[in-house]
């Protein structure tokens, strides 16, 4: 279970509080108006922003004291998920060993991860030689390889068209189901949340609300969500 225990994030005169728990293996969308602090919340969980108060617990252990790379999570950013001067293989292999000195068994793992995301044969391409969808798949292959129990996604696949985005979300869902990963995804598009299913956290007015079943939430949206959706 991932617990945000009285978390408080302060940036200048902006403040955000979050106090809820997410079950292991859950799929959670985070939606809300822009500027409400969705990405800020994710950055704090990932370790890029310090907490002004509170704890972040995973299986009872406070992970807020750990540096970003040591936390039990992987993160996919909106863009810049790949190093442009490294090949797809190298970008994925970084998830196993930043030194890139791999044993043959480890190289096989990298190739396997690439194959599972549909990238077999594209190992030696640089990101610039891959399509947007393929670039996202490289990032997902690395997530698979790292095998961390939590996956954070900050408006992932924002650069992709609607059909491709839906395809990628389905792939993420499949991979998360296979690995049992806990998924937290920030999105500004309610369609993404509906496609992902699971639960949804609404971030608005300086608060991240506890997760609610996504279907129930959209069937009877609270006022802040209604304002955001515009209906």
């Amino acid at each position: 279970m991932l617990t945000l225990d009285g978390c408080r994030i302060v940036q200048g005169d902006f403040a955000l509080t979050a106090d809820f728990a997410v079950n292991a293996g859950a799929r959670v969308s985070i939606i809300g108006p822009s500027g409400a602090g969705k990405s800020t919340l994710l950055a704090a969980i990932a370790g890029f922003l310090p907490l002004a108060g509170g704890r972040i617990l995973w299986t009872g252990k406070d992970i807020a004291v750990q540096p970003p790379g040591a936390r039990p999570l992987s993160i996919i950013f909106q863009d810049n998920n790949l190093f442009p001067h490294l090949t797809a293989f190298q970008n994925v292999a970084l998830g196993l060993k930043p030194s890139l000195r791999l044993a043959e068994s480890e190289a096989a793992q990298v190739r396997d991860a690439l194959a599972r995301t549909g990238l077999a044969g594209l190992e030696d391409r640089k990101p610039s030689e891959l399509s947007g969808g393929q670039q996202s798949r490289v990032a997902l292959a690395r997530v698979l390889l790292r095998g961390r129990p939590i996956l954070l996604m900050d408006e992932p696949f924002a650069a992709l068209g609607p059909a491709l985005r839906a395809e990628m979300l389905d792939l993420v869902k499949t991979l998360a189901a296979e690995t049992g990963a806990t998924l937290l995804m920030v999105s500004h598009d309610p369609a993404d949340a509906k496609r992902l299913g699971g639960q949804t956290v609404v971030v608005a007015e300086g608060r991240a609300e506890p997760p609610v079943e996504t279907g129930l939430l959209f069937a009877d949206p609270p006022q802040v969500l209604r304002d955001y959706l515009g209906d």
Partner: protein
Amino acid sequence: MPRWPGWIAVAAILSLTLGTLALVAWRAEDSFGLGSGLGPADWAAVRFTLLQATLSAVLSVAAAIPLARALARRAFPGRGLLITLLGAPFILPVIVAVLGLLAVYGRNGFVSQGLSLIGAEPISIYGLTGVVLAHVFFNMPLATRFLLQGWLAIPAERFRLAASLGFSASDTARLLEWPMLRATVPGAALVVFLICTTSFAVALALGGGPAATTVELAIYQAFRLEFDLSRAAFLSLVQVAICTLAAALAFRFAIPAGFGAGLDRTRQRWDAAHWTLRAVDTAAILAATLFLLVPLALVVARGFPALPDLSSATFAAAGRSLWVAAISTALTGITALSLALLIQSLRRGAQLVEGIGYLSIAASPLVIGTGLFIAIFPFASPVALALPVTAVVNTAMSLPFALRALVPALAEAEAAHGRLADSLGLTGWARLRLVLLPRLRRPLGFALGLAAALSMGDLGVIALFADPSEATLPLLLYSQMSAYRMDDAAASGLVLIALSLLAFWIFDRGGRANAHA
């Protein structure tokens, strides 16, 4: 906008660089005729020039890497001030810096006195050691700014991604920093090498003798001491060959932009929190600050007590320096602006004209001076024209920097406001006055400040021409140092540094004050 001022500027630059070179070549034919060619002393000068420039380039960049890395990944109070200080050697008179370095590393300097306390031999700053030391003093800050720019050009997202993957500092170094350094270090080193091949004032003050004479210094000696114009001319050709080679090499690599803005940012780094890395960075920053500040602080500290004894000769020399700097600054402004407007207006050949504007980077002041001497000598006494000639040569030396600041700014102003100005029928003088000049205030102020400071502190062609009684302040300071009148030298040094910084500040400030964003 009429183009003739720009074409006049082009003609002036061509005659100053290629024209003087042709004169020198013509005069040097005499020595070919005599079959003298390069003597052993001349070969020694060539070797020393290349050796000291190579050492200076390597050491400057080697020292710059840890400093730039520390500045790129640490935020600390005084960081902005230190980065500003790294720009200062550019407008600092060379001879003042030498005075400061002597106060620290000279025979009676700090370090030697410390060594003698523990019974060790004092160090000797004259010769290769001193020349390289002074060059590192001037060029390590420049190299640091180049490399810092490289570091800050690595997108923040890369470091964030690196942190999310748990990169250690050495992973970051290997995967992010090393590729950047491989791309920037050769360019930075070659720029330093190029600067050091034309070094004259440093070699004059700290070098000399058969073992430590640069080609520039050899030209001066052939000219002033041996009155051998043919040999001076021949050495000038050698100097031009070295410069051209170095410049060609430097331009083959991407030259890093010199005065990039935005060095005030740092990257948030999650890989560098370990205390050993903090200690390494702190040490790099402290060492660099001491290395740069202590010599200057000593000049100021020793100059103040001697100020009441300033001689009338110092005041007269300061007056001549101000005069030279004023002329040179005005000429630089007019020439650079005319050229920039011409470049902007040309559809074809703009790059060629801009390239001509940068010619003097590869030219040496002493070669231009020698050529001007040959040109003037049949008609007038070059000694009588020492000051105007110095002002003109200083203009040629400042011009590349002024163009570098003005040309992109002008292109930007035209891109942003050109269409509106066209639609309003704003042309010619009105366009310049109402649209372009207001947008150019900052770069123009900066360029003029640089020209004023460079000219104020210049010790080059003036040494070739001037009568000792008609010296500028840097030349007077040099003669006081050679005569070991260190108190007088310290006072002159303080006045010179104050005038140089003031000259830069006035113009640069003038460009910023009330400038509309």
